[in-house]
């Protein structure tokens, strides 16, 4: 029966994650540690493998469509991977209570980002309009560094990457998050690339997805060698996440996005409260 529950956890995480554009890690860790009573370190290990599988599956499609900026991804990845190793090593010296507290704080942060991205995305809309203007100019003078084909607009969209050092710094912190808490860190990388580095949102999402898989490798190897990845927990979750992610990508346009965002934000707040209370030794159930 537990096998079915693990697969179901993965399906829900993958489905909700793909609809609102976040990785499943932020759902998997609280569910495994709070409801299945699995030690948080092992829950993070399982989440890392799931994040890696999701990234491989999603970036396969992005790579095929040439939406990933590989050269940018590789440059940023040097810093992200270094951060992931630092996070993985840091985990050994961190008390379980602190991990619960950190993860609780992270879920609150993500609740805010999910709301901002999905409900209050005016800034992104303005940014996307700017890219369209750039695209029109590019056809005239071709001064852009990079471009991608936008299926919705049916034309090449050009962009110039700026402020690379900011990208390096935030990538390093995203790596630490990945190594320490088993999440992809896309919620840090995507806004940084989009709002600060001038990368269109579609390219930022695709490039971040491509990077997450490589980052997860660095942390997963450390977790694996320390016995923190239980394949009997991780692999059913992976199976579920892949199925849920595929289902989510097909139904993303059919379901009411707003309602799902509100449910997910409510879940994040609930997980956050539970995990912070647990960090103080208070168990609600």
């Amino acid at each position, binding site marked *: *029966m*537990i*096998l079915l529950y693990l697969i179901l956890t993965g399906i829900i995480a993958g489905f909700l994650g793909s609809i609102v554009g976040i990785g499943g890690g932020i759902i998997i860790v609280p569910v495994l540690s709070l409801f299945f009573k*699995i*030690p948080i370190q*092992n829950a993070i290990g399982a989440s890392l*493998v799931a994040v*890696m*599988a999701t*990234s*491989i*599956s999603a*970036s*396969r*499609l992005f*790579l*095929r*469509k*040439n939406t*990933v*900026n*590989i*050269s940018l991804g*590789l*440059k940023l*990845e*040097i810093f992200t*991977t*270094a951060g*992931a*190793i630092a996070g*993985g*090593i840091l985990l050994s010296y961190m008390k379980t209570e602190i991990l619960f507290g950190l993860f609780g704080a992270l879920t609150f942060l993500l609740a805010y980002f999910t709301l901002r991205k999905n409900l209050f995305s005016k800034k992104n809309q303005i940014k996307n309009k700017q890219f369209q203007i750039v695209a029109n100019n590019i056809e005239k003078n071709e*001064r*852009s*560094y*990079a471009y991608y084909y936008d299926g919705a607009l049916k034309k090449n969209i050009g962009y*110039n990457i700026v402020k690379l050092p900011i990208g390096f710094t935030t990538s390093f912190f995203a790596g630490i998050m990945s190594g320490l808490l088993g999440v992809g860190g896309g919620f840090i990388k995507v806004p940084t690339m989009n709002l600060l580095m001038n990368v269109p949102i579609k390219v930022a999402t695709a490039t971040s997805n491509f990077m997450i*898989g*490589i980052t997860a*490798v*660095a942390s*997963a*190897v*450390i977790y*694996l*060698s*320390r*016995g923190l*990845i*239980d*394949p*009997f*927990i*991780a*692999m*059913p979750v*992976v*199976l579920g996440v*892949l199925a849920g992610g595929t289902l989510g990508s097909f139904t993303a346009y059919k379901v009411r996005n707003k309602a799902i965002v509100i449910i997910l934000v409510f879940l994040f707040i609930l997980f956050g409260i539970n995990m912070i209370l647990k960090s103080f030794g208070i168990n609600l159930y």
Partner: protein
Amino acid sequence: MKKTSKDSEKNEFVKNRNAIDFIQSERLGFYLSRIFFTGMVISLCFIIAGLIIALINGRSYDKYLMKQGVFYFSDFFIGIREFSPKSYLYFAIIILVLTPFSSVIFCIFYFLKKRQYKLMISAIGVLLILAISMLTGFFKN
């Protein structure tokens, strides 16, 4: 005035180099998507095989949980031969780990062939850091 024009020429050169870097990496996306697809399919086969073996063994699935300890490569190959579900599931994880890892190695050779040395150095940097993470893991083991 002369200095400004030189600077703008230099900037143009840098921009063009970046554009060339980007165009050179375009075709790479197709090859990497192939690597990712292959890795994903092999890994999925091993996950399904491992879970089926675990279920037909007659042992309750709960009994498998949290009994793994530290992972040793030496146990792993014997387990594959003996149809141990643990080894099959570990193999799926290793394939998942090796997929992005091999994509970075592929990038290095691709950029070397295309003479994109700047991008090749970036990929080597990523590979080196990944190698450090593997070594960190092995030493701890």
